[in-house]
């Protein structure tokens, strides 16, 4: 990804992230977060993670944030007014945040000494094809031969071939959360023993 795009999307992600925190109106916060997530998705694309980037837009920016907005509208939550911010908390938050970023900056400055390569390594589909050998499914094989990164296909292979068990766990988790949402959001039923 050209550097200018990186800086652009990183700025979008972070600036709108700041908006989430500082805006007093929850609707603004939610919308800012959605934009921030779109910026993040762009960063994912820059990292050649096309599938993850798409999912980020679909699930986060699409579904999750809409859910947030929906709830905010439903409950009709007004902007906070008249409250003076808790300056101690603001100060603590800034200190914690700055320290964290500094910490990470210090750590990443040591990378070159270790084995982590920080320079972008070009992807080499041909080499990958050789390494995968017969394990590669036909579709993946074709794409790799053509020199394209079959990101979504590789994710599919990964999820269904290697992480099937975890996919099942996640399925169970989604079921539990469905049950949970039903249980937690049903209205009080005054007639005893009534069905849901």
């Amino acid at each position, binding site marked *: 990804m050209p550097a200018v795009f*990186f800086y652009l999307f*990183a700025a979008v992600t*972070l600036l709108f*992230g700041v908006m*989430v*925190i500082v805006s007093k109106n*929850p609707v603004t916060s939610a919308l800012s*977060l959605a934009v921030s*997530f779109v910026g993040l998705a762009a*960063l994912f694309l*820059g*990292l050649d*993670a096309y*599938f*993850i980037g798409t*999912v*980020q837009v679909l699930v*986060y920016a699409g579904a*999750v944030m809409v*859910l*947030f907005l929906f*709830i905010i509208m439903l*409950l009709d*939550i007004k902007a906070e007014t008249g*409250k003076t911010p808790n300056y101690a908390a*603001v100060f603590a*938050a800034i200190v*914690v*945040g*700055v320290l*964290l*970023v500094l*910490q*990470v*900056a210090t750590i*990443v*400055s040591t*990378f070159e000494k270790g084995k*982590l*390569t*920080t320079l*972008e*390594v070009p*992807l*080499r*589909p041909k*080499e*990958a094809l*050789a*390494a995968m050998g017969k394990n590669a499914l036909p579709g993946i094989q074709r794409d790799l031969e053509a020199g394209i990164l079959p990101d979504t296909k*590789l*994710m599919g292979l*990964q*999820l269904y071939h*290697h992480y099937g068990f975890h996919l099942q766990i996640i399925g169970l988790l*989604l079921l539990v*959360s469905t049950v*949970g*949402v039903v249980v*937690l959001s049903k209205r009080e039923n005054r007639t005893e023993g009534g069905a849901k």
Partner: protein
Amino acid sequence: MITLNHYLIVSSALFALGLAGIIVRRNILVIYMCLEMMLSAANLALVAFSRFRVTDGLPDYSAQALVFFTITVAAAEVAVGLAIIVALYRSKQSVDVESVTKMQG
């Protein structure tokens, strides 16, 4: 040239923003959004690490699988979380953190 470090700094900044939001904000819904920001920051770090650890010419997809699961889990958590917050709002008519400080001691 954009390096791994750039991505990690952005990720840490996003994480720090989320953390700061949790500390500063009093609206539970906004706090919950900040939590999502923290999760996304983690995802960014994971994807960046996976992209810069090229094995056999491809990014390491196991980390991306984890990112996929994280996103799914986050969605599920949001669903349950919002249900709880709605229930709270129904009983207290407020989503301020001060409405959940009845227990002390």
